[in-house]
């Protein structure tokens, strides 16, 4: 077993969790109940087999290069997030993989089959939730699922899907009368009616309120437990942070960074920032910490921010502060996130690019 101390992104509480090396699971903050996904260090996911192999993919519309020679692999059983602002080329890429659009150049292998010639052979094994999908308005939830399942030879148990997606109380409701969040849950459920090996979810939470978004996240997180490979496109960094095992950041048709959340933050983030609140003597504290070689600045109201490039240095800073008898009210450590990664890579905020 390994122990992990993590800070709750909502309330800031430091919480300790234990897990098996390599285990990934959703944990809840005991103080505020916020869910987060944890990857315990050590071990490896059994993902040696590539479910999707994209090679030198390119898509050009007249004089617009939507996708510019991108290559990546998606491993079996992982949640792969394709993160980028609107218009970056996410949907074009996923729709080429789904054989909805034709590529200008490049190749895609899905479950080992070339989609140009063998897409029909993989239809039974994939499930898709298109962007801004709305199903038949005048069918009930159950009728909708039954309709789509009957299109396949391989059919999952509809009742099991309904239970797994927490849709039991809505089975007799017409699709048109469902809330946005429920519609998306039904959309995800539809993508599972053939018990697929790979599920494509194209911006599944766009337009949803935070509560509904979180509900859909839990549904997607459950797909990993069911052994599905999930290809998720999103422009919400929190979504990728919460769900993804592997993230590819796409910007203006190019993949500009790729890796696990930790890898991306380590490689492209600015580390962590320690916020020392209400220092008794901020100017003197700044001088002391600068002498020790830290990157320090005042943030006003007696608060100080100390840049910490590696998390191992946190204890070092605390130790130096104790030795210098620096007095303060409290300390808050903020870790670098995908927003910062994107900012560092592109010079623009992800939100501004939308």
């Amino acid at each position, binding site marked *: 077993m390994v122990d992990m101390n993590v800070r709750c992104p909502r309330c800031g509480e430091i919480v300790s969790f234990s897990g098996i090396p390599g285990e990934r699971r959703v944990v809840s903050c005991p103080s505020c109940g916020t869910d987060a996904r944890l990857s315990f260090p050590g071990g490896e996911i059994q993902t040696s087999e590539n479910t999707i192999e994209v090679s030198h993919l390119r898509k050009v519309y007249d004089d617009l290069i939507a996708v510019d020679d991108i290559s990546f692999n998606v491993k079996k059983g992982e949640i792969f997030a394709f993160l980028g602002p609107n218009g970056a080329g996410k949907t074009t890429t996923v729709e080429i993989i789904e054989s909805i659009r034709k590529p200008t150049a490049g190749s895609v292998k899905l479950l080992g089959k070339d989609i140009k010639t063998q897409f029909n052979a993989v239809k*039974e094994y994939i499930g*898709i939730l298109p962007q*801004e999908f709305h199903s038949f308005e*005048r069918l009930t939830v159950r009728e909708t699922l039954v*309709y789509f399942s*009957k299109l396949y030879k391989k059919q999952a148990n509809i009742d099991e899907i309904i239970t797994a997606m927490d849709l039991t109380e809505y089975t007799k409701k017409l699709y048109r009368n469902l809330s946005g969040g429920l519609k998306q849950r039904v959309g995800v459920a*539809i993508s599972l009616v053939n018990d697929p090996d790979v599920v494509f979810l194209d911006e599944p939470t766009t337009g949803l309120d935070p509560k509904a978004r979180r509900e859909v996240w839990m549904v997607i997180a459950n797909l990993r437990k069911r052994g599905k490979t999930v290809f998720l496109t999103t422009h919400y960094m929190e979504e990728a942070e919460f769900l993804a095992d592997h993230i590819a950041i796409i910007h203006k048709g190019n993949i500009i960074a790729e890796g696990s959340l930790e890898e991306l933050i380590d490689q492209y983030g600015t580390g962590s920032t320690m916020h020392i609140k209400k220092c008794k003597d901020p100017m003197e504290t700044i001088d002391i910490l600068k002498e020790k070689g830290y990157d320090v600045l005042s943030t006003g109201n007696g608060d100080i921010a100390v840049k910490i490039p590696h998390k191992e240095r946190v204890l070092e800073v605390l130790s130096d502060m104790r030795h210098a008898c620096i007095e303060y009210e409290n300390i808050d450590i903020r870790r670098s996130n995908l927003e910062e990664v994107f900012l560092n890579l592109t010079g623009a905020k992800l939100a501004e690019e939308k």
Partner: protein
Amino acid sequence: MNLRIIGVDFVVSFKGWIRSKGTIFWSIFFPVLLILLFGAIFSGSDSPSYTLQIQDLDDSQSSQMYLDMLKNISILKIEMINASENITDYIQKNDLKGAMVIPKGFGDTIALSHIDKDASVNLSFYFDPSDQGSTSVVRSIIGSSLQEFNLALSKGSHTIGMDSVSTITSNFKYIDFFIPGMIGFTIMQLCIYGSIERNTKYRKDGILRKLLTTPITRTEWLLSKMLFTMFLSLFSTLIACLIGILVWGVVIHVNLWMITIIFATSFLFSGIGMIIGRFVKEEETADTAAGAISFPMMFLAGTFFPLQQMPMFLQEFAKVLPLYYVNEGLRNAMISLDFDKAAYNGIIVIVFALVFFIAGVLLTKWKED
């Protein structure tokens, strides 16, 4: 071809239809409402009739013969003007839209024509130019009657004559005319708007993209939708016929040409809907485009009123409209049992259907660019 998938998709279309109040209204209640309404409005005048005032200045056996011929035309109501009246004053005083004068010497000239082939006499037709509708019909009836009369005098062959005209018009009540038109109109609306929903709304909602990634093929899906469209067309035809028979006592003949024209019409207007859906991506705009095409066609193709009541150029224009041939073909097949004309109009509908449906299928894509 997977018949199970076609069946599953057909059931979904049926459920969607039966649960849509709007579609039920437009496909069943609206045609029923119009049949009841128009039937009630025109129930007093079973066939369109025109009054023709005639002044016989000759009062001969020949003029009497001609008058008898005109009186036999059911569509005409003949009223006589006293020979002593000044015709122009009389027309003005009685605000007449049209009147005909048989001149003095009419009979003598006819008698002379047996010896002198150049002998001729003209009837005078006074009309109000502002009343293009009825006067043009009356003028064409007089023209036909004169041709018939000339033919009779010259002992010519009787292959084409007034008899056939009068036979049709005498049995052709307004409601008989209206019900086939209403059936054609309803099928047109159902198919165009249904097709647009499938090609714009389903595209916008991602349903087509979703289906593209499932095992259902485009052919299976299209076949299922066309089967459902044909079912709807037959169902709305049945409802219109039942109302016609039960409420207005219309005698409707069901035959192969009627069914053929109904099915061909379903393909024809579904094809037009697909073409609209291909070029107009927004659902609302597509509905407007469909209205812009179907509503003028409804009025110009003789759905509600006989084309003969319209100016000549509109009558000619109607002949390029597919709905004209649908309406005429259905009337020929269902009401007048004129199978030659039903075949003629039916074949034109089939040709239109082939052209528009094939064009629609070729233009409609599931895949994105």
